[in-house]
């Protein structure tokens, strides 16, 4: 009954497990694949506590790390101060376990990234993706047919790798930290450009000679912008946005404007009006 209620709650917050037969053992964090995840991705997690007078549970998703969804069984009984204190204690312990779990996963990913990066060979411009995009391999490495783009924090620590396939498919190492991490092409003199993907950043570097930071996706622009502004307080910054005019809300341009507002930067975006398409 409680498990059914909890499953219904998971559905209501968009974290429905793909496997309907999923079991939540008491007090144990269960990582599972939700309906919004691709095959093999255990990006959702939940924990259920049934030992208390009023059972409760918490769920969260890897892509929305800061957000937690709390559930409490419907009950007519009010909690006593002692029970409330116990509930607080359990939530605190659970949050701690969650943080530890995340830190462990991230540390493992960083170690794996370092191992893969250390063992890989420098990439050449012959890679099909680079040829298709017409850009050079600025400090990239290759593992079999995959290009590797390292994601480092402002202190230079490697956290994860982005793999780019010959067909342009991109993926990250599972569990690695990406927020605030970037890949730098060139050294900044008086200005620094920010771009989403590697090919865009390499194009900008080739065309302008300026240093460019690859932020990997538009959701990471603001975190990288803040981190780099703190590192280089006197540089001019330009956020070079993707112009996702065909996507509702134009997320690329919107994120670029937010990042620019946060650090006092300019926004440059490509305009294709009046440009002959190939």
């Amino acid at each position, binding site marked *: 009954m409680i498990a059914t209620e909890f499953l219904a709650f998971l559905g209501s917050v968009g974290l429905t497990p793909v496997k309907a037969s999923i079991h939540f053992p008491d007090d144990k964090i269960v990582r599972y694949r939700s309906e919004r995840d691709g095959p093999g991705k255990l990006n959702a997690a939940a924990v259920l506590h049934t030992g208390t007078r009023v059972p409760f549970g918490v769920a969260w998703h890897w892509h929305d790390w800061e957000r937690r969804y709390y559930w409490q069984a419907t009950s007519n009984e009010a909690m006593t*101060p002692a029970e*409330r*204190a116990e509930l*607080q*204690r359990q939530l*605190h*312990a659970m949050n701690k376990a969650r943080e530890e779990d995340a830190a462990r996963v991230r540390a493992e990913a960083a170690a794996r990234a370092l191992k893969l990066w250390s063992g890989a060979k420098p990439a050449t411009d012959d890679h099909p993706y680079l040829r298709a*995009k*017409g*850009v050079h391999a600025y400090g990239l490495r290759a593992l079999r047919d995959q290009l590797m783009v390292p994601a480092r924090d402002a202190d230079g620590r490697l956290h994860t790798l982005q793999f780019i396939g010959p067909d342009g498919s991109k993926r990250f190492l599972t569990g690695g930290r990406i927020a605030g991490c970037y890949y730098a092409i060139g050294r900044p003199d*008086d*200005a620094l*450009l920010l*771009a*989403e*993907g590697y*090919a*865009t950043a*390499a*194009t*900008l570097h*080739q*065309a*302008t000679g*300026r240093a460019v930071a690859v932020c990997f996706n538009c959701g990471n622009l603001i975190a990288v912008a*803040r981190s780099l*502004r*703190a590192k*280089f*307080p*006197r*540089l*001019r*910054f*330009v956020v*070079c946005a*993707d*112009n*996702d*005019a*065909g996507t509702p809300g134009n997320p*690329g341009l919107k994120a670029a404007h937010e990042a620019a*507002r*946060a*650090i*006092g*930067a*300019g*926004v*440059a*975006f*490509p*305009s*294709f009006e009046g*440009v*002959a*398409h*190939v």
Partner: protein
Amino acid sequence: MSKPTDFNDLAQIAGPEAVKATVDKVLAAAAAPSANSQSPAPDWPDPHLPGMVKAPEIPAAILPGWLGEMAGAVADSTQTPPALAVMVGLSVLAAVLQRRFEVAPFGDDYTEPLALWTLTALPSGARKSAVFSAMTAPLLRWEKLEYDRGRAERGRVASARKVAEKRIERLLADAAKAKDDHERERIRSEIQHEKDTMPAELRAPRLFTEDVTAERLQAMLAEYGERMALLSDEAGIFQIMAGIYNGGSANLDAFLKGHAGTAMRVDRAGREAHVDKPALSFGLALQPGVLSEVAASRRFRDSGLLARFLFAMPASNVGKRDVRRRVAIPDQVRDDYEAALFQLLEDVPAVPGKPRELAMTEPALELWADFAQEIEDHQGEGGRYEAISDWTSKLPGAVARIAALLELAEVGRHAEEVSQLATERAVALGRLLIPHAQAAFGLLGTDGVDADAGAIVKWIKANGLEEFSRRECQKAMEGRFRTLERLTKALQRLEQQDVLRHYTRRNKGAPPTEACIVNPKLLST
């Protein structure tokens, strides 16, 4: 090609020149932050100028239930910053519970008494008295009720004592006229019997006073169950502590021991006071000017007296109040406040016993210990709180006291442990109080590093500097900064206060320059 979106697509369609032209156009318009003093870069926080730290608001909701509601209602009714009612509310709570309870965070022999010292600085005319009247009214009422309730018994005891005293006087006279030693010995034993059977003096309980000398305070602590609170919106107590009645040399021990709860033994000609575990709370509200005058006494700071106060430096509402707005404190809120305080005051022992210890639950302890460690890590040399480390050293203890007070306020006097919820509130309040203390100590006289930092700020402002090198700064103030170490400390302090940011400027073919960029908001204020 799918629908073009990025600069790579633009380069492939229109060539790299189009990319360069687009970016260059924006770059030309994007001035470096250092050259943009008119519109401060949005990522710069407000600078905390030395001695001018802006303190955040202390909301009434930080206190639980009836106490928070009353503080909120009083602040709303009087149009005063909620910080004042919050601080007075905490002192009232301490006045009610101190000496009867203690908090033992680890559940062992380390205990903190529940005495609390709060001090709120607000200018004259800010309606401090109205807040004090509303918050202390139940204490006055309780004292009066207790006075009336015990009147008959006190009268009986007083007359019995009077009779016994008179009889002893007569017996003494008889003893002087006794015919022989045998008769004298008989009278002496009668006197002893009278003394032994004389009932102890009965006093109506008192919770607080407004104005007291150190000597009288010692006596009051002995007379009123080893506990007393000083709740006042006047500055008289500081004048007394500064020695107005003692030729400028006041006895601060009576006050200091009351905060720590250490034993007090006074054996002077004409007066005695033996108090094993004194508990003294303060709830003061003063004008900022008086507070800065207090700084003139180096003894206050050196003795740790000022470090014991939890300061609130709220922005005054004077000049912003709506004179036509009249909101009464809701009766329900006022009644709940009084009823809750009266409940906490039930079973107040006439003779002080051993205080009941409240340990912290495990999560509460974790939370408190994390906070204490955080403070510890930042109060060492070069740390964020170095300048007020005497105050921050006492902050974790004060937070533990507040947590216990809030737990007792919420659960009642039968509370067994300090919960995580109460500790969370106390820690949140503790965090809020740090900038207030920084502001207060800024007013009270800053330390040497702050004075150096202040001089650099003056130099920056006088020259309108947007950035400068460390060398330029040292050269401009050679007299002050004879050593690089002293300059570096001052610059670090300014960096902590978001006044400037340090960076290393690369020079082609020359060693790098250590430079600082100034928060544009500093020049625009």
